[in-house]
């Protein structure tokens, strides 16, 4: 359920390394807890994000939550499809529901995050 090659933050974001770039989204656990996502507010391409600082907001019928960047760097891609299809976050949080891609300035920050097993323990599913 939680891909082994992703890293996970305590705030329920995942980070996937892709040749020096890092793809970011929220976990299945977070998507389920939020229930139906209705809106995702993402940064602009070119903006800077900082490690474990808010970079956007995800809103469901139940709550609005901040999104925390699992790595520092420059945003090089945002998932424009979420604008019209926020339900992708619920349907495929670890895939089609991705949020941003970051050109990481310090990829070693990812070492400070959890691996899949650590994350499962974090959410009480291990």
């Amino acid at each position, binding site marked *: 359920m939680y891909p082994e090659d992703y890293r996970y933050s305590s705030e329920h974001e995942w980070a996937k390394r892709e040749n020096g770039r890092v793809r970011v989204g929220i976990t299945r656990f977070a998507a389920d*807890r939020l229930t*139906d996502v*209705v*809106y995702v507010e993402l940064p602009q391409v070119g903006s800077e994000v900082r490690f474990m600082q808010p970079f956007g907001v995800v809103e469901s*019928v*139940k*709550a*609005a939550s901040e999104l925390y960047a699992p790595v520092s760097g420059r945003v090089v891609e945002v998932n424009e499809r979420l604008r019209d299809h*926020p*339900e992708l976050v619920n349907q495929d949080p670890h895939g089609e529901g991705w949020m941003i891609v970051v050109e990481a300035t310090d990829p070693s920050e990812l070492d400070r995050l959890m691996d899949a097993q650590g994350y499962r323990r974090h959410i009480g599913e291990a």
Partner: protein
Amino acid sequence: MRDFPLIFERSVPGRRGFGLPESDVPAQPLEELVPPQALRRRPPALPEVSELDVVRHYTRLSHRNFSIDEGFYPLGSCTMKYNPKLHEELARLPGFARLHPYTPEELAQGALQLLWELGEELRELAGMDAVTFQPAAGAHGELVGLLVIRAYFASRGEKRTRVIVPDSAHGTNPATAAMVGYEVVTVRSDARGNLDLAALEQYLDERTAALMLTNPNTLGLFEEQVDRISERVHAVGAQMYLDGANFNAMVGITRPGDQGFDVMHMNLHKTFSTPHGGGGPGAGVVAVKSHLEPFLPVPVVVRDGDRYRLDFDRPQSVGRVRAFYGNFANLVRAYAYLRTLGAEGLRAVAEHAVLHANYLRVRLAPYYEIPYQRICKHEFVASGVRQKRRDGVTTRDIAKRLLDYGFHAPTVYFPLIVEEAIMIEPTETESLQTLDAFVDAMVAIDRECREDPEKVRTAPHTTAVGRLDEVRAARQLDLRWRPA
């Protein structure tokens, strides 16, 4: 789904609700009175209806509402207590209701006296030194409180950039801090439901302007370490802000000023029984300790001998934050509430509010998860996790089903730190019979979750409008600012 038309759909061209006699003053052509660029080319798109159409339309709509005058309304954090009808009469006394806000002070002495005396009473209950009546609601009170704190630090030449907020806080707290330009730092709660003192200490330093604390907090629990928290916050020179939305639990028993708070807002529309929700505007009085008094909004009501006046001469004031002097009619209601109850009565308010909440908490415990098992104050947070895991029924479904039993739903999915939260605040004005009837309904719903979960999942079944598709409504916004 719509069983009667919008008021716009009732419109018939030329229909009017009234007729006026011919004016005996010669008419001036509009073009001579209004510059051409300000003149409409087409008439405004208002519904053209008769008075009877309007009365029927809105009376019918009002039947769709659920109000405290109709049934039990245990909406956590909102203190939906009974609003005595006597207050309505008093607020409508022509001397108050028809008083123009620009009436000269010497002709408005009664109103000014009422404000001044209300201020004295609220000061005493809060353990504070000065008040402002201007904020229009709780969140507005927060804004004023933080503006006052910011002005205080500015006057001392201190540059502080952070406001600390617990993870159990109402969303208005971090929103307010951000609006005032502060960086918001969130601190977690501990296993007993208190603010985690050790975690707080990690963030406390000379960058901190204030801690915004709610006491009792949004879990309905008294912050057991509030004295130590105040001590640590003051040790770094920061201010203690109380979100007084939950003042109903301690009014007349303990005073925020004695707990170490420097500023607080009170929701008169909660604790002091003025109508709210759809029933009326709020009133978020802010009370401060003396070191913050110079920064309060102007004007401030003061007494000189036996005369009352509005003091505008406050050079350090944050300025005016609202037209005139606050929602005056609500201040009249709150004054009536205080005077009719008196000190003994107010203390009984808090005692009964706490007793009722604990009664419900204990009686519901066999059926619903209660994450924090300790004596609560005026409200408590239960959870629908058991029903969700066991029966696949969510808190949302349970809340909707309560409507079929004739009760307004509790606050749900807040505070955010409790999964499937059901936040119940009965208030002091309910009878034992009502509380028991509510317990019966909650127990019956728990049984339905097990035996007929589909019934709960598709509730409500008896209301004029059934379950709405909230997700579709939020994803496919259908908003417009003029009729199509």
